[in-house]
């Protein structure tokens, strides 16, 4: 018995032989730790407060989505995408629907595109609010967090009005939405747009030029543009280094070319730059939402018959018919059953489609062999790709900088591990 206890080895934490003699400390940060928001483990070698080396271990919440997707009809994969970046699930949903639409050659109407833009930009605002307020929390400023989270809640209420759920939304269908936007939704949207800027300004006033916050963030966890590009950074983290790559502009999808917005960029790619880029993007997203609502109202005023169309008619083989029709029309009932039983084959093809997710370029690489399920589906998950630069960003810095660097990168465990 006692022999067993002595011989018991810890298989997963590999400490070096001379760990008792050495002058530095090995610190196991995570997998669950109050300073890391999500399941991240870093085995750090620290000398006093300095991080000498860090080795991230990932995969704690790996759920084999890519394998599961190979056995699911297309419409069931949407729920998997929810659970990638769960802070901005609607963007993942829409990205997946657009990938299938690309495969099937479905063209959605402008109104549907603008409806998608509204939910995607709201999701981006929610995502950035979480990230920025958590950066503030990690620097010791809790107040801003409590202000903006009320508005994240309001965004979730809007999602609830669109699709019935809040966090993992499973929103929309191939070709459009499952139901039309209601009047209550527009009321909530207008309320959000009217009241959010005041709170956002207050949040910015608390932090942007706050001496303590600036001293804490400037110069922490920097990365150069060259290294960021070499590491495959995308999204706000790349833009913070000064590269203005945004999928919404580079390869416009869902009629983003109709909107007028700026791509905010930083200069040195440190925590402060990432924070500022995200803040500016919140304002741009808000302006896009406003423009989208205006455009929808214009379309509805000009073509009143468009008001009732919330999905592309040619997607009827993949878009579940509205429930009202299922109960009253034979055709709709048949399609409903065919879809639920997964009896509709997709054409063979190979598609790569990407959208600008909350954290960067979220790509879907789909190979279809003509079956009912993807033959192979690969998610290009921005978190997974840029988290590997984390050691390079924090080594040589302070331990407390490593913590805010992690939260400012906005690594989401669900997306990291898929």
């Amino acid at each position, binding site marked *: 018995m006692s022999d067993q206890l002595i011989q018991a080895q810890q298989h997963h934490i590999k400490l070096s032989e001379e760990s008792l003699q050495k002058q530095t400390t090995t610190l196991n940060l995570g997998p669950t730790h109050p300073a890391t928001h999500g399941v991240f483990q870093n085995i750090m070698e620290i000398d006093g407060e300095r991080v000498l080396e860090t080795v991230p271990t990932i995969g704690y919440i790996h759920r084999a989505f890519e394998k599961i997707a190979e*056995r699911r009809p297309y419409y069931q994969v949407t729920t998997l995408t929810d659970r990638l970046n769960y802070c901005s699930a609607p963007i993942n949903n829409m990205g997946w629907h657009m990938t299938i639409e690309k495969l099937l050659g479905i063209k959605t109407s402008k109104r549907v595109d603008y409806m998608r833009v509204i939910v995607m930009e709201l999701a981006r605002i929610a995502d950035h609010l979480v990230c920025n307020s958590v950066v503030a929390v990690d620097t010791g400023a809790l107040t801003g967090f409590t202000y903006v989270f009320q508005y994240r809640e309001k965004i979730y209420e809007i999602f609830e009005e669109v699709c019935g759920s809040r966090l993992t939304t499973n929103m929309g269908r191939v070709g459009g939405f499952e139901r039309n936007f209601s009047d209550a939704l527009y009321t909530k949207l207008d309320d959000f747009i009217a009241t959010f800027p005041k709170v956002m300004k207050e949040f910015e006033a608390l932090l942007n030029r706050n001496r303590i916050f600036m001293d804490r963030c400037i110069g922490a966890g920097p990365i150069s543009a060259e290294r960021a590009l*070499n590491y*495959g950074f995308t999204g706000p983290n790349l833009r913070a280094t000064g590269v203005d790559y945004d999928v919404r502009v580079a390869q416009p999808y869902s009629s983003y070319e109709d909107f007028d917005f700026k791509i905010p960029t930083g200069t040195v790619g440190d925590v402060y730059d990432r924070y500022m880029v995200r803040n500016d993007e919140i304002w741009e997203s808000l302006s896009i939402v406003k423009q989208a609502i205006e455009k929808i109202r214009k379309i509805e005023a000009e073509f009143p018959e468009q008001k009732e169309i919330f999905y592309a008619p040619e997607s009827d083989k993949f878009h579940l018919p509205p429930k009202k029709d299922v109960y009253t029309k034979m055709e709709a009932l048949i399609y409903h059953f065919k879809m639920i039983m997964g009896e509709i084959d997709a054409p063979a*093809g190979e598609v*790569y489609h990407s959208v600008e997710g909350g954290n960067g370029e979220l*790509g879907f690489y789909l190979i279809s062999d003509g*079956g*009912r399920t993807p033959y192979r589906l690969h998610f290009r998950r921005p978190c997974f790709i840029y988290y*590997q630069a984390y050691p390079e960003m924090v080594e040589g810095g302070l331990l407390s900088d490593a913590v805010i660097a992690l939260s400012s990168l906005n690594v989401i465990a669900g997306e990291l591990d898929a």
Partner: protein
Amino acid sequence: MALTNEIIQQKLTEKFGEQLTEWESPYGLLTVKVPAEMNLKVMQFLYDDESLRFRFMTDLTGVHFPDRTGEELSVVYHLHNLVDNIRLRLKVYVPVEKPDVYSATKLFSTANWMERETYDFFGVNFIGHPNLIRILNVDEMEHFPMRKEYEMEDPTRRDKDDEMFGRG
């Protein structure tokens, strides 16, 4: 002059001739099959050439085709020229018995984890990779779970066999 798929194809053909095969462009994305031992040469040329400038690796992943005898495993690279805003897909095929592919980590740091992931799930052996160990699965795992021979479902269930998914 904007870079187009035709120009890329022409330039690559000039340089590598007949060794690049299976040219196609599904949904506008130029795709080409590269011999496994030449993947680094082609990527280096695409990186260095002043007019091609494919200096951003978007994605790297594996695919298993059990029916392609002698080239069952495929590694797919998505490269992006950010200046001219054009993408390119390279495919490499290797036999499942000897899945050796040269690692792209020297050229793109981002390939590090993506190659580890591909190794983890498909067992592709990336030669020259600094730390080719499992990344998402447990270290003790002995098989490569994304290969098609490992079934998702309980194999005794008749309602979940391939026929139910439009195949076989």
